[in-house]
């Protein structure tokens, strides 16, 4: 019996349907708050899914992925503010520069194992954070990029209009997730899984583990940066908080909350955490207490991501039906 594997056509179809639904949503449910939420979730979904390429698919627990989210926001914002380029050009600059950052940080960090890898990524993130705070003339320091990010129209898209911004963000997210999906379902994606499962054995199959990990690190960095870029467009600025360690912490929580064994888990986690955050901050200033309690409940009680439960349920149902069928 061959396991059926998701093919590209099916994934594209699902993505197209999802995109159409998201694009129609504002007409069905015209709530600005829902729009805002979905834009933010789009940014976080790219961020969390790219982090899961490292954590879930490759087994590299990065504590510093927030570095790319923040870097993307700043690279994009600065290109728009300082260079005055078009949005597609700034997008390109963001992608290329974050890939370079990923290459340098990755080449150094990947040499380290386990917890040392985690810490050195965190250290690089904190170094970038310190730089952003201290390099006031360039970054605006703690105040972030001031004065807003210009949003000149391109190709008939005007991102200063809310509806355009919404459509742009969800389109970028859906395309980004589709590309990440392609990557994890490609031969390379399976190389990463093999490295995660048993990297020693992988080397005995002739796999260049360093090269594969570095490639994954760069790809994850680029998509993390694109997430940051979407966020920068939304808030019309870039802030040091994007580069702070808490960003990485939230990314990891999103993954865990949504489930790291399914592809859409991290995106689902991004949605849940954003909702949770909004509801909690709305109701209390002691949100640390509440969020902490929720996390504890999750870590000590559920111990699995939300989509893991769904996946388990499907599997059990399938097994039950195949059992009764045979």
């Amino acid at each position, binding site marked *: 019996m061959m396991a059926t594997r998701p093919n590209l056509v099916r994934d594209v179809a699902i993505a197209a349907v999802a995109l159409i639904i998201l694009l129609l949503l504002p007409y069905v449910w015209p709530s600005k708050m829902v729009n805002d939420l979905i834009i933010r979730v789009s940014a976080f979904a790219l961020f969390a899914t790219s982090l899961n390429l490292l*954590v879930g698919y490759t087994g590299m*627990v990065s504590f510093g992925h927030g570095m790319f989210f923040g870097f993307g926001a700043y690279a994009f914002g600065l290109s728009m503010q300082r260079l005055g380029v078009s949005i597609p050009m700034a997008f390109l600059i963001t992608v290329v520069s974050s890939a370079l950052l990923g290459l340098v940080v990755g080449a*150094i960090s990947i*040499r*380290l*194992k*386990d*917890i*040392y890898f*985690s*810490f*050195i990524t*965190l*250290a*690089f993130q*904190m*170094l970038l954070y*310190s*730089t952003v705070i*201290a390099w006031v003339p360039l970054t605006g320091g703690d105040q972030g990029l001031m004065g807003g990010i210009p949003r000149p129209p391109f190709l008939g898209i005007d991102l200063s209009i809310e509806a355009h911004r919404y459509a742009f963000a969800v389109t970028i997210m859906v395309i980004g997730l589709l590309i990440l999906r392609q990557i994890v379902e490609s031969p390379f994606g399976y190389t990463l899984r093999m490295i995660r499962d048993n990297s020693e054995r992988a080397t005995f199959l002739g796999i260049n583990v360093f090269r594969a990990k570095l490639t994954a690190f760069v790809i994850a960095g680029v998509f993390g940066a694109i997430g940051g870029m979407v966020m920068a467009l939304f808030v019309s600025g870039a802030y040091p908080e994007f580069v702070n*360690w808490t960003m990485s*912490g939230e990314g*990891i*929580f999103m*993954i*865990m909350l949504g489930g790291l064994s399914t592809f859409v888990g991290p995106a689902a986690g991004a949605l849940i955490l954003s909702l949770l955050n909004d509801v909690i901050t709305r109701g209390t200033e*002691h*949100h*640390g*207490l509440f*969020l*902490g*309690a929720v*996390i*504890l409940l*999750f*870590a*000590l009680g559920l*111990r699995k991501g939300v989509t893991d439960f769904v996946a388990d349920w499907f599997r059990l149902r399938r097994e039950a039906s195949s059992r009764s069928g045979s």
Partner: protein
Amino acid sequence: MNLAALTDCLTSASCLVTQTTSGLIIGMLLFLVAAGLTLIFGVLKVVNFTHGSFYMLGAYLALTVNGLTDSYFLAVLAAAAGVGLFALVFERFFMSKVYGSNVLMQLLVCYAFILILDDAVKIIWGPEFKSMGMATVFQKPPLFIAGGIVPVFYLFLIIVTLILSLVLWLIITRTKFGTVVRAAAVNPSMVSALGINTGLVYSGVFVLGGMLAGLAGGLAAPVRSLTAGMGFSILIESFIVTVIGGMGSIAGALLGSIMIGLVRSFGSIGFPLFVEGLMFLLMAIILILKPSGLLGKEG
């Protein structure tokens, strides 16, 4: 960058004395926190991200006890004892439930406690920052040694932390508890097969680590502003120290702390705008040259 100032300092006795003692004081307080962190990691293979919060709790407990008894020494003792107790509860009822599971689960439990403790501190002690004040014993003019300035309180702190380091070293190397702890770090299942309850050893290690952090918080309280979230920067610095020294190595933590202390104190003369960066740079270089830290075991 100001290399001239740095060479001037290195050739001047007064500057050397002042900067070396200031480096030592930074390093030794850091060591107390980092030692517990590295000890817990070495034995339990768990990264205790709440360690900074333990430090914060120690400082606040000291504040309260100092206010009640007006005795700095009682305050410090209470900080150590209180945080030790808290560490016990934390380990028994929360952390021990996620031993052996995903590292990320352990991280989440700690993350939750960082959030909860910060809020709890604000609820109990109020949102405004607090200052404990210097005990009258130490309200003395600083000493001048070879032209260098050495505050009496810091001299006291350096001596106390040195004694504590010595005591810690004796506990780890000379007592049965220490012997068992070192053995449990290497081979817990054999230790268990010899009739020792490793669960209790783990609790003991957590309590010891917590007490050290609490002690550090209490000791430093007179010269720190107390505020929710004060544990985080100390946590990051402790990570740097333990990673430089090698995770799990107490001697490494001592080495790393003193290095960081000296880098800060002399770095502030030579590279005043890049002190923070210097620490990260040092860490990156050491990890590149020796991926498991200076005294860490090759994993």
